[in-house]
């Protein structure tokens, strides 16, 4: 593909962005799941 000048080599690549994304994903999962969970508790 285009733009091949490597700013990062495979050896030292740390997926910081992906870790941040994954943390956000887990957070979103907790919000959605517990959102419904508390709806359930409120209705019982």
């Amino acid at each position, binding site marked *: *593909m*285009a*733009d*091949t*000048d*490597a*700013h*990062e080599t*495979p050896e030292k*690549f740390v*997926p*910081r*962005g*992906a*870790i*941040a*994304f*994954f943390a956000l*994903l887990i957070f*979103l*999962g907790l919000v*959605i*799941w517990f959102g*419904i*969970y508390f*709806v*359930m508790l409120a*209705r019982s």
Partner: protein
Amino acid sequence: MQISRPLRTILLIELFVPILLLTIGIYHGLMQVIYRAGVIQRTSVAGLDYYQGLTLHGVINAIVLTTFFAVAFGHATMLFYTKREPNKTATLVSMLLMVFGTGLAAAAILAGKASVLYTFYPPLKAHPAFYMGTAMLIIGSWIPYFDWIRMYLQWKRENPNESTPVAVIGTLVNFTIWFVCTLAVAYEVLVMLVPWSLGWTAEINIMLARTLFWFFGHALVYFWLLPSYIMFYTMLPKLAGGKLYSGNAGRIAFFIFLILSIPIGVHHQFGDPSIGRGVKLTQSILTFGVAIPSFITAFTIAASLEYAARKRGATGLWSWIWKLPFFRKDVFMFGYLINGLILFIFGGLTGLVNASYSLNNVVHNTSFIPGHFHLTVGGPVFLAILGMSIFMLSQLSGKRIYAPVLNTIVPYLWTVGVLIFSAGLMYGGLMGEPRRTNMGLTYLNPSSEQFNPYWVVSSMLGLAGGGIMFTAGLLYFISFFGTCLRKRTSEPAVDFPVSETLHEERRIPLLDSFKPWLAIMGLIIFLTYVPAITDAINNTNRKAPPYRPGDPTPVVRNQ
């Protein structure tokens, strides 16, 4: 790489037929949101009844399109990676069975003799042609599986020290799941439903039929999803201009799918009688297990994309995202795949809610459920199928894509539509809005005694989103059929983008062998489904005769 003429023709038919039928499927998708919002307050429009159309929408979009595509894409993948062609006769027979079966089922539905929805829940009865057509479609899709096993074993003998490509593992895992789970539905259809709908047997056990259906029904969603996963792992990093962060992650993900896709089907039956709570709780917990590969995939793909962006000079914790090749005609597949992944964030997480035992009481069979699955099967699955269908059409026919700008914006437009649509349906679902219901006649009809004002806003959001989705579908059809009508400009071929892995990975025998995983798969299915089926048989003490959808008295045949 090159492809022989007969195989090319078969693959083109397998891509063309479902997209042609999809025009009807998508048409009734739009009609449904119009009915449901109360804009149309009728049972049918233009000769097509709401529930008949809903059956078409489900069967075409969720069974026909997905099965045809999985077979065509599987052929191309196996051909491309093992460098050998599938058996011509087997491929032809398979295609003919699938096309003929689809025609039979479609005729039954269009004749109004099979308005039973794609789950064909008995005791609602359809014409036998509907059941037999569906069975033929499924059996047709089995044939390539055995042929691919032969190709895989041959390849393995010639390359004993090489790791099997992830795409080949994915394809074989997918069709193994498919073959095993469809055995149950084949039993339901051929042994229970067909003789019963012909009047040869008077009554059947409904709970057994439902349990067999859901043995198949949830594994089915992974059969839809795994071709997309193959594309995420083997193509998306390359399309983004980077490398796959971890190939072993992909192998692990596929093998977890193999062992856990089937023994979780009871999570669709939390509201059902006859099946014990212990079985329900066990299968609920196992469902968390099958979410693990999707979390792995989310991270691995994010890391692969980040690597691609960093190679382009991106910095920052979040801003790298904007260095990815969005809206680029030359890598339009990137748009289809990334939008699918964005939708799947919400689709996957809401799926966890549905499968979480008592939480299911809040959402079961409400419009929350279609809200959820339009973010999964209508998200990563559908977009990957659309993108790859036009990609393969262009390569196999040697024609350039017609109106490439339209083709490029389709996935973005679709995503906006689905997000609005699903938000509306889920919001309504939390307020008890039922799925699979012609609400325009009663609940959304202000002149009906049953009018429910709470559902106006949610169904209107569904209408708005559905309208955008339909528009995206139309743009796709222009591009797809426009491509069909073009002249050939290059040699037909099959050539997929191939992602290298970021780090060199040695062959790990455990992650390159099916046997141990197949054994675990069999064991877990046995342990979870024997109690479920025993419960369904033992606690159900009355069998049911067939009913037609329009008549509250059972169908009785003169002996």
